[in-house]
């Protein structure tokens, strides 16, 4: 092919996507999006990171990525501040960095791609009110310490408190993404609150356990959660989970790649601003929203990850 387009990689130009808990299924469609964009532009990609929930290991893997001098890294930093120095060092050494799904705002990363957790929470809150009315009891599960999950929960609680003051929060339990813990917690919540009407869960792992508890107690509780797994998808199809809000992972990866590529090729643009004198990367996008999908019984079939991955290479 004639490599006329400037939106094309040079021979061997490589882009890395680095995450923590790298075996988590959330990354799978993100990386597919990342790869699709890369292939369109003739670039090489690597999926990297640490299988552990361990920041030291993620930093080590990030630094090891840099040794190979990739053009850019699309990074999901496990924590914001610990990555400031590593990101800045990477950029100083000629590897550009874009963050996604979690940010390191004080670093010099060029762009940040994410879904809007606040928007998700607001949407969920409105849906709950629509379904159970504006003066019902509701509860949440939490995963304290993980920022995007924290945001999804606190934003929903704040939104309801402000806009629907008669909504009553009757339970807040930590489930830490563990189905059994969630199962136990929800079982107890249901006992303590016979009038519980709705449950908001910031991720899918806990939702699996929560559904089982609700079914075991034969309670009628509206369950909504963020993210999606095959198991919760089945529960949505069966009507046991009302709805799931899932970030548009494909676009997160696709946009993530494009933003990283652009950040690595600032010479492609000459915008009307002060980048020449101020010295920042003219390709910088402070925040890009990749949007989220609303998954219900009706459209559930489109969100079967196992079906989607058939014939695709996960790595």
């Amino acid at each position, binding site marked *: 092919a004639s490599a006329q387009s400037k939106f094309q990689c040079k021979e061997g130009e490589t882009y890395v996507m680095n995450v923590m808990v790298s*075996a*988590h*299924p959330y990354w*799978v469609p993100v990386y597919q999006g990342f790869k699709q964009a890369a292939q369109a532009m003739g670039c090489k990609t690597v999926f990297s990171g640490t*299988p552990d929930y361990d920041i030291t290991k993620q930093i080590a893997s990030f630094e090891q990525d840099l040794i190979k001098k990739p053009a850019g890294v699309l990074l999901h930093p496990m924590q914001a501040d610990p990555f400031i120095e590593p990101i800045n060092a990477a950029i100083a050494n000629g590897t550009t960095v874009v963050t996604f799904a979690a940010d390191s705002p004080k670093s010099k990363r060029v762009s940040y791609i994410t879904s809007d957790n606040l928007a998700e929470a607001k949407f969920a809150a409105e849906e709950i009110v629509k379904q159970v009315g504006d003066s019902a009891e509701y509860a949440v599960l*939490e995963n*304290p310490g993980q920022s995007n999950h924290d945001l999804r929960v606190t934003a929903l609680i704040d939104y309801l408190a402000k806009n629907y003051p008669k909504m009553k929060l*009757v*339970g*807040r*339990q*930590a489930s830490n*993404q*563990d*189905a*059994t813990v969630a*199962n*136990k*917690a929800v*079982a*107890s*919540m*249901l*006992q*303590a609150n*016979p009038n519980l009407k709705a449950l908001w869960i910031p991720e899918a*792992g806990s939702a*699996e*356990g929560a559904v*089982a*508890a609700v*079914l*075991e*107690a034969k309670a009628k509780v509206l369950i909504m959660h963020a993210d999606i*797994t*095959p*198991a919760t*998808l*089945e*529960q949505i*199809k*069966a009507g046991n989970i009302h709805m799931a809000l899932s970030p548009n992972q494909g676009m997160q990866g696709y946009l993530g790649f494009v933003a990283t590529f652009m950040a690595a090729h600032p010479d492609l643009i000459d915008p009307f601003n002060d980048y020449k004198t101020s010295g920042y990367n003219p390709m910088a996008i402070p925040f890009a929203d990749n949007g989220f999908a609303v998954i219900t019984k009706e459209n559930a079939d489109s969100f079967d*990850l*196992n079906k989607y*991955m058939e014939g695709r290479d*996960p790595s």
Partner: protein
Amino acid sequence: MATTTNSVDGEAGSAGNALGRLFRMRETGLILIIAVLFIVMSFASPYFLTWDNMRAMAMAFAVEGIVVVGMTILLISGGIDLSVGSVTALAMVIAGWLFLNGLDPWTASLIAIAACTAIGAIMGFFVTRVGLHHFIVSLAVMVIARGLCLLGTGGRPLGLYTLPLEFKFIGQGSIGPIPVVIVIFVLFVVVFDFMLRRTTIFRKVFYTGSNEKAAAYSGIRTSKVIFLTTTLCAALSGVAGIIYMARFGSAQPTFGVGMELNVIAAAVIGGASLKGGSGTILGAILGTILLSVVSSSLALLDVSIYWQDIIRGSILLTAVTIDHYLNKRRG
């Protein structure tokens, strides 16, 4: 002369009545502590002493309780298994994968349990033939089994909503008012408690754990005993995995992370020694119940999640301290 020495035939004085026996049991302290917890909780929450809550609490520990049984026996023989969480997950993944690939769920489950048993046998081999320590072998297997879960699923949970109803019955059904899960759990506990107390085979587990050399000098094939307890623990983890699968209708590759600490803690609270040679199923199950009731109670009372860990840890420490003193006083 001394009061009760000399009497080889002391049966009479001590055997006594049932009440006296109950008081001398190792588990009495735990039973008392749990009873106190129940009384306090029934005042603290009107929902506590309801049938539904009891049922919910029992469901919360029943399946893990089966793993606790295996772990207790292994601990008594002087071993330990850190891989129970991963192996439980692996059982789900294997059975789930086979089911999704067309096998009937019963056969799939049997194969999964057999695979877990084989993993236990491999651990047993490394411990008894190679001579490595249980801790390090099971740690490696914990990592490998988790890796197999990931490999088998690509990290994605398997949705098994299509499992036939009669299979789901294991995990979700009830016999009368009593959930099948609890029936299975009680069955395992009763059978293994009885066997551990009464059968010659399991007595050898105690001998081996108490003093491996002396057991060998009593003609016991201690490697075989340790091999078998290691295998049994993995097999029971497999059984637990299958029940979880039937209960949740899914197979999660990340299931059971950190389960090992919980399970070992339950056994230790119940009087099992990490040095081997002592422990009872009943005690271990009481330990499980204690841990579970505390967690459930905190959730029931909607204690702030920022306080829950602090309270949970403190109750645990207090409970084992009280139990320790009760046992010491009893002699």
